[in-house]
């Protein structure tokens, strides 16, 4: 309860400052203005919420799936790992905001560039963690599987994948919020739909209550993804002693 009380306190404080000092609405709206926007402009907000939601989900799925499959390949082929890991590291060093315009030029103005940006932003942490997770099994466990004449596929499905889950979820929790950032950044560049486009439009037109409401919606999306990922982690990692917490 203390966090909720603190949040309410801050919002009330914000409202008081705006009212007492008479801050103009276009510089900073009061909480009441923002709440009103959800009522009055709810249609625009929802219309632009769904594209961002879809892009973030699609980017999350695509980026993480490719990262996981690549990690599985790397663990089974040290040649592949030596050849492609440095390239993956290089891709990671390019600032995503800088590649976004390039992707828009390449892929047009539809969903594709946004999904690719969201996927790119998820990809690297998952790749790194997944490779580490798949390799986290003890040499003794590998020897046990060898004594049992288990093949690579059995080692992967019976041992490696489960062992990697704690590492994978550490990355997925990061990805669950960054995929929303990726989608919004993608929509900043010449897009005419999505929360990102709405943010740009509201800023240029000094519609700050709408701007604030859009940002709150984006944050809510990220928090929802994060919560869902955490719940999935709890459920899949029930066997861990710390999972009880």
């Amino acid at each position, binding site marked *: 309860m203390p966090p909720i009380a603190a949040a309410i306190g801050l919002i009330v404080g914000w409202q008081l400052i705006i009212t007492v000092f008479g801050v103009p609405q276009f510089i900073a709206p009061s909480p009441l203005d923002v709440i009103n926007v959800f009522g009055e402009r709810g249609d625009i907000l929802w219309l632009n919420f769904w594209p961002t939601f879809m892009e973030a989900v699609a980017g999350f799925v695509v980026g993480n799936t490719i990262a996981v499959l690549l990690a599985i390949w790397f663990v089974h082929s040290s040649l592949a790992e030596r050849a492609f890991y440095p390239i993956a590291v290089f891709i990671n060093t390019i600032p995503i905001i800088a590649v976004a315009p390039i992707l828009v030029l390449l892929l047009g103005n539809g969903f594709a560039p946004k999904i690719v940006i969201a996927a790119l932003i998820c990809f690297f942490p998952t790749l790194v963690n997944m490779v580490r997770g798949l390799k986290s099994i003890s040499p*003794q466990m590998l020897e046990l599987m*060898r*004594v*049992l004449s288990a093949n690579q596929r059995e080692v992967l499905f*019976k*041992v490696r994948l489960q062992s990697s889950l704690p590492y994978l979820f550490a990355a997925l929790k990061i990805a669950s919020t960054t995929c929303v950032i990726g989608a919004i950044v993608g929509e900043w560049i010449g897009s005419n739909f999505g929360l990102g486009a709405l943010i740009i439009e509201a800023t240029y037109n000094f519609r700050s209550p709408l701007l604030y409401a859009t940002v709150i919606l984006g944050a809510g999306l990220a928090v929802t993804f994060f919560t869902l990922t955490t719940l999935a982690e709890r459920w899949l990692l029930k*066997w861990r002693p710390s999972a009880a917490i």
Partner: protein
Amino acid sequence: MAVAEATAGASAPAGSTQDVAISVRNASVVFGEDDDQVVALSDVSVDFADGGLVTILGPSGCGKSTLLRLVADLVPAAEGEVSVFGHTPEEARRRRDFAFVFQDATLLPWRSAIDNVRLPLQVGGGGKIEQHASPEELLALVGLKGREQALPHELSGGMRQRVSIARALVCRPKILLMDEPFGALDEITRDKLNEELLRIWQETGTTILFVTHSIPEAAFLGEKTLVLSAHPGRVLAYVDVDLPHERALSIRDSLEFVTITAMLRDLLEKAS
């Protein structure tokens, strides 16, 4: 008690009708490349009788684990031959002739005790084994009846090692290779597991090779004790442990037992 020089024929007592389970002939194991080679085992020849319980003793780094791993097809022989019931280690591994128990229980933490025991039946063609033991009965045999659904982290170190022994027995292996299985346990747990291992050995008739660096453990468990010397690993002695077949922990206070441990300690001093 007889101290025999370990030569090809010395392991089986003259006139014995016992079959040989494992035969190691002039085997050497070398690790590493040209410059920093380590000779872990050098020209080792030894026979292990079918149904016997042999303890393997020696200073640390003398090649005890390497000898077990050689039999288990986990390391190749640089020279010499190993035969397991007339087969190469690789064939024996595929036939599930042996099972390995490590110092660490090596359980899958997300699997319950019973599901860990089932693992050997689910990989490496283990599903085709028809004559396998019942995992439930094995857990009862190792004293874990009622804890079938417990996860490894809910069990004590001793219990985890019991699960790993049950897992090793599930394919009814002819040979159990145990590498310091109780080395990480406290003394009371270790004593109890020693007694239970003897009981399991008598009930199942499995051939057991048991590596330890504890002299009392080697003497208490072994029908015979193989003493290795270090750098390079060689067979120093292969001695019969002249104690009654039925052993209780109290035997460790007897004069015979103390005589045997004194002799083993003597040999170990020579070994290092």
